[in-house]
């Protein structure tokens, strides 16, 4: 079993606590006078994303989590699982809905994603930062109408709904930043 000593703590390090994988967000070494030294850490639960605080006695060891990230291509969804493939070795991964999470609204077949694996099982999937998706439904939008802040809602081919400028029309392809969920630009066909 691989372990990390508190001396090795730094942000980004993956550890296991109570059989769950965590990532260290922040690590602070504190030592009161002549007393016991501690490592105060903020850690993120990799499944839920929840951040908690924990205090270790300095010098303690913590189990290392075998967590890695890899680029995978989104293949298809079969109703229960979302399927991905590592194009370098054709390994396939089936991820449940809770693993794909809210990012599923951006997933289009053949797009590249970053998958986080724990003991070789999918832990989370991050869609690409930018995706190009077709608008399947939006109001025509009146030219010159700026009362709605110059934007209108649009439903994209994956089901995601984003706000787009009034001049953008149905069947056009747009570029979206998946981190903010915001329209970036039109994509010329």
């Amino acid at each position, binding site marked *: 079993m691989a372990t990390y000593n508190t001396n090795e703590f730094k942000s980004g390090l993956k550890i296991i606590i109570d059989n769950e994988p965590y990532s260290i967000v922040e690590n602070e*070494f*504190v*030592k009161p006078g*002549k*007393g*016991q030294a501690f490592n105060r850490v903020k850690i993120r639960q990799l499944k839920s994303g929840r951040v908690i605080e924990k205090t270790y006695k300095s010098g303690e060891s913590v189990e290392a989590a075998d967590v890695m990230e890899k680029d995978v291509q989104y293949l298809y969804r079969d109703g229960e699982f979302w399927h991905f493939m590592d194009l370098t070795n054709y390994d396939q991964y089936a991820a449940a809905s809770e693993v794909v999470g809210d990012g599923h609204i951006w997933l289009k077949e053949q797009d590249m994603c970053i998958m986080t694996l724990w003991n070789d099982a999918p832990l989370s999937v991050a869609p690409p930062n930018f995706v190009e998706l077709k608008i399947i439904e939006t109001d025509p939008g009146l030219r010159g109408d700026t009362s709605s802040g110059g934007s209108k809602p649009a439903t994209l081919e994956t089901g995601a709904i984003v706000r787009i400028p009034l001049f953008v029309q149905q069947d056009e392809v747009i570029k979206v930043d998946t981190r903010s969920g915001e329209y970036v630009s039109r994509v010329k066909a």
Partner: protein
Amino acid sequence: MMVTDVVNWQPTASVAALQLRARLLRQTREFFYERKVLEVETPTLAQYTVTDRHLSALQLQLPGSEQYYYLQTSPEYAMKRLLAAGSGSIYQISKAFRADEFGRHHNPEFTMLEWYRVGFDYHQLMAEVDLLLQTVLVVSPAISIRYVDLFFQHTEIELMHASIEQLQQYAARVGIDSSAVTEQDSRDIWLDLIFSHQIQPELGWPQPVIVYDYPASQAALAALDADGEYAKRFEVYYQSIELANGYHELRDVIQHERRFQLDNERRLALGLSTIAVDIRFMAALQHGLPACAGVALGFDRLVMLAGDNKQLADVISFTVNNA
């Protein structure tokens, strides 16, 4: 690309920080020169180290010798041998080494300012530390407060009568994770947890705070009061950072033996190896340490605070990661 293109060789401290350090060194030396305190040098490499269970010394072997030598965690024992030999009041600015201490405010190798005042009690030394800080940091005079009063102020716990359960309940109430505490730990770990998590972050704003009269269980090598209730020890905090630790020095050789033995018992309980007691230090105590008070101050932290920096790396030429 050559390897030298990607290796980070630059110092972590700016040239301005190095100049500030040089200025503080000069001011410190002037401060002690004016007071006729003698500057001394003692070895950083020695045959013994301290028994303190919360300190870990780096050890090494010299060629052709089976014996281990230790990089000193502070120059305390050697300086006390000089005091016993009749040096009078002395100070030293030296490197000290502590394994396992890495962080924003810790580097395993660091610079320490340590001084001893023959004939001073700890209150006189506290006043002198305050004066040094006012001189080099340009801060208002420090506020002094007893450890128990400080503890009560922040937690409303009457420390003298507080049980482990009470401390435990308080820690749980304010959300301190105490899952690391085990049966082998003494009551002091609760004080350490609460102090470092709840009290220290609030200490030393806007001016330095001197906390004094520590619990007898945290006496280290400080003398106790007549009733044995508290230790004549003090710590200085400025902007949440621990700057200095001082004692009205314990002189009794039997008391030393007892405390070292207790240290080693606690080390064993925590699964650490015992440490041989420094026989030369004990012999010097046997000969007689003059009545004195002593204090050690983290010099790198002083420079960091003087320059309004947030981490030691900003004022150390090369930290251990790129030394």
